[in-house]
């Protein structure tokens, strides 16, 4: 820097302080623009103190003179500016909130059939449903609803444990579900093998026919929930055992019949305990409605 050159000390102004007899400090003032920006920021701060909540005063604080207009009990009222009132205003009047509310109201007043018949409502429910699904359901059921065995069944196939009507799906999201198949550890050895073979044969999987026939008698205890025909019971969340839709074990992916049977035997011995939380406190009724439409459509919409 030119000013720090020691060739012409006399030409540069110093601060006037002298240390150790000859040690001086150059006076290099701040640039003008910086100085003015500094003064401007002080002026800004004073304006800010007056406009917004700022200074603590004993047990309260200066609320500022700035106000917001929000709707309260059907009337427009002036309220002091603060981040919470600003939030209320944002929820009421921000352009995206207003646009969204138009559709939310429409969906809220429509029946499921009306939503299905209206492409604009469907598009909205799909888009909101996708967001809601990502935030609330995907952690367990997967981003695409593909499920995660053994605990979290697939929502993307057309196999419904608890029923596939809109009202059922909506009710299940609202109240949550407890899936519970008791384990049968007393069924062991040949009886277990025979029963497992029988269950596999229900889906048309080629197994030891004699063993499967022997296992049929043991199925009586299963029929209490799965039905005599093994077609399942959506009231209990008991799946149809004849349709190759396996909600907790990957029977289709198992390479050999022995491996398939081992999976079935495991379920018979240990049972299944699954739980889906209730979302009634977390989501609004209209959010649950859109999510229902979305989940229903994930499986092909049947």
């Amino acid at each position, binding site marked *: 820097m030119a000013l720090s050159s020691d060739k012409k000390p006399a030409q540069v102004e110093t601060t006037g302080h002298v240390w150790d007899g000859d040690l001086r400090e150059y006076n290099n003032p701040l640039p003008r623009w910086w100085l003015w920006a500094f003064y401007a920021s002080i002026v800004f701060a004073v304006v800010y103190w007056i406009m917004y*909540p700022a200074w603590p005063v004993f047990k309260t604080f200066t609320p500022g003179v700035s106000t917001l207009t*929000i709707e309260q009990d059907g009337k427009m009222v002036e309220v002091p500016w603060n981040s*919470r009132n600003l*939030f209320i205003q944002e*929820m009421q009047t*921000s352009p995206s909130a207003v646009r969204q509310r138009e559709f939310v109201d429409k969906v809220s007043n429509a029946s499921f059939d009306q939503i299905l018949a209206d492409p604009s409502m469907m598009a909205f429910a799909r888009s909101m449903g996708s967001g809601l699904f990502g935030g609330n359901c995907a*952690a367990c059921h997967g981003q695409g609803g593909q499920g995660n065995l053994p605990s*979290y069944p697939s929502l993307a196939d057309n196999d419904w444990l608890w029923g596939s009507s809109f009202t059922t799906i909506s009710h299940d999201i609202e109240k949550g579900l407890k899936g519970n198949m008791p384990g049968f550890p007393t069924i062991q050895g040949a009886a277990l093998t025979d029963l497992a073979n029988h269950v596999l044969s229900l889906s048309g999987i080629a197994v030891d026919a004699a063993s499967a026939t022997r296992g049929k008698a043991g199925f009586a205890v299963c029929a209490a929930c799965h039905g005599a025909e093994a077609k399942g019971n959506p009231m209990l969340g008991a799946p149809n055992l004849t349709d190759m839709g396996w909600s907790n074990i990957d029977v289709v992916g198992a390479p050999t019949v022995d491996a398939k049977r081992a999976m079935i035997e495991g379920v018979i011995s240990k049972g299944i305990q699954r739980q889906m*939380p*209730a979302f009634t406190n977390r989501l609004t009724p209209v959010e649950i409605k859109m999510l229902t439409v979305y989940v229903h459509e994930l499986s092909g919409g049947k």
Partner: protein
Amino acid sequence: MKHESVEINAGLLIVLTLAVISIGGLVEIVPLFHIKDTVEEVKGVRPYTPLELRGRDLYVSEGCYACHSQMVRPFRDENLRYGHYSLAAESKYDHPFQWGSKRTGPDIARLGEKYSDQWHTQHLVKPQALVPESIMPPYPWLLKNELMYSDIENRMKALKMTGVPYSLTAEEYQANVTNFGQPMADKLHIPNAKATLEAEAKGRNWDGDKERITQMDAMVAYLQMLGTLVDFKKYEQGYFASFR
């Protein structure tokens, strides 16, 4: 005093510098101890039960706060994703609070009862098994390690010194019965702490094994109560704004 005498006396310079910069901090912080409106009056907020408290300690020691905030801000987008914005009252028994300052993972102020206990256990052991795109590190030792809780009474006593209403005497216990109801007051009674913690850990299938008391039990118990204490349906939006 001449300016020069400050500049040539290092000790004096340090003292005066500290005095000047502490003014900024004092002006910002001290009034908050006196302003009555800071903490909202809401029903439902209570101190942590012994098991939750141990879970919270693990949350801190595992450094969860480095990636997860517990502070939903009053913005529309955060409201849509996470739920109601956080209240000061909801962390009034937190010492220190876990608001965090960085979201590498999502905010978890409203995580409680959103997922099943089983999900939390599986997720903490191996996050990618449930959320393939997750970058969260695994915490399998929570399931392996026995929970150390022999010092639970001292932990509660320490918090009591900071103003958390855990009870030691019959009077304090009665006050808790009035404020939080008897079942909760029993859990907040320090002399009962060990028995309470054991009963809590074995009373619900937190980690899939009711008999062993693991760190996972405590962690899941803590995560499952986050943000669940206040029933927001009981309050108008304008009510919380009146405290600002």
